């Protein structure tokens, strides 16, 4: 990584230091304090030069990383106007996904709710007609009843035609409604690309920051990730890698097992 290169492998700086150090020891052993202090000045100068050039490189790195961050817009105003930025655009896109999936779910359930009674009525009428039909075949039906059955059969066939036409239309619109998958998929892919780009730029920024620490000799206390992660009552939402995690149940059976192991 280039941050190691900066400090440890800057050959000019290191060889200058080494040369000066050897000379310094010679001069001090020979009591040439005048020359020794000149050498110390040279060493300080070399270190300053190294810091200046490092700061220059860091500034360029920082600038490049920020420019690539996709946060365009008027940042000088307060609050900053970032409506044209790509990240703002991404949140709009994600809201669009929520709206579209919600519409599709609503429409699908509307269609199912509209279809269920049609299917149920046709089924009930068919059942009742079949009973009468069996009575007719067993010759248990009077002439008047037969006239009624004749009429009902007529009506039922009409209901059947209308009902199945309606059911077909409803099923067709359920199928069409699934088009949300295509549209939301396209939007999500674009947002994924953006998140990936931003992640790369963040990594670059972190690198720049660690170089600043090295050059200036600042030491930060490392905080372990585990300590930061507190139990969050907000929840995590659906687990997308449940099969790879030990702390997550893989389905209702494991929930039931866990609860019964707790004496539930």
């Amino acid at each position, binding site marked *: 990584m280039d941050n190691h290169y900066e400090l440890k492998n800057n050959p000019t700086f290191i060889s200058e230091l080494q040369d000066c150090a050897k000379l310094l020891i010679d001069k001090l052993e020979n009591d040439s304090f005048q020359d020794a202090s000149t050498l110390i000045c040279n060493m300080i100068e070399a270190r300053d030069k190294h810091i200046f050039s490092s700061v220059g490189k860091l500034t360029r790195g920082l600038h490049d990383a920020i420019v690539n961050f996709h946060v365009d817009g008027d940042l000088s105003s307060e609050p900053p106007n970032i409506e044209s930025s790509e990240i703002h655009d991404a949140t709009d896109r994600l809201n669009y996904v929520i709206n579209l999936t*919600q519409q599709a779910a*609503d429409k699908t359930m509307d269609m199912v709710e509209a279809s269920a009674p049609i299917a149920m009525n046709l089924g009930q009428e068919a059942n009742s007609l079949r009973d009468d039909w069996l009575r007719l075949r067993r010759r248990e039906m009077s002439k008047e009843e037969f006239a009624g059955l004749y009429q009902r059969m007529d009506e039922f066939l009409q209901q059947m035609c209308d009902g199945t036409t309606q059911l077909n239309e409803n099923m067709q619109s359920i199928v069409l409604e699934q088009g949300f998958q295509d549209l939301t998929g396209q939007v999500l892919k674009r947002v994924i690309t953006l998140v990936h780009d931003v992640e790369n730029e963040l990594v670059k920024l972190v690198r720049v920051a660690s170089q600043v620490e090295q050059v200036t000799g600042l030491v930060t206390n490392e905080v372990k990730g585990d300590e930061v992660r507190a139990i969050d009552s907000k929840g*995590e939402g659906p687990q997308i890698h449940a099969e790879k995690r030990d702390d997550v*149940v893989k389905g209702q059976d494991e929930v039931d097992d866990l609860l019964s192991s707790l004496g539930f």
Partner: protein
Amino acid sequence: MGPLRGELMEVALDKGMKILIVDDFSTMRRIIKNLLRDLGFTNTHEADDGSTALPMLKSGDFDFLVTDWNMPGMTGIELLKEIRADESLASLPTLMVTAEAKRDQIIEAAQAGVNGYVVKPFTAQVLKEKIDKIFERVDS
């Protein structure tokens, strides 16, 4: 728990009981409402998070609560803790229907006094089983 006992319970369950469904997604509320209706429960009411649900529960003599965990405002686990701390609601049968699947969370919900825990996505059969089980235990 043989099938016979399940059938007996079906007779014993009050289909007119007043149920509150709490979920921030209207689609999920609608799915649960439809499943409950298929099971014969028609007296269902809805809230979109814990802070809306709590005053409804306090004033509405509900018999059963079905709640999600992850919601803006007050979460389901916070709602559960609130009602368990409230004298008039402390014994309200509560079923959690949630995507939260961490063992720690399930244990937390159990310790907070949940009566049943269903992970999403779920089936009509699982929902029915859990409701039967809750009222079997509550009644006995």
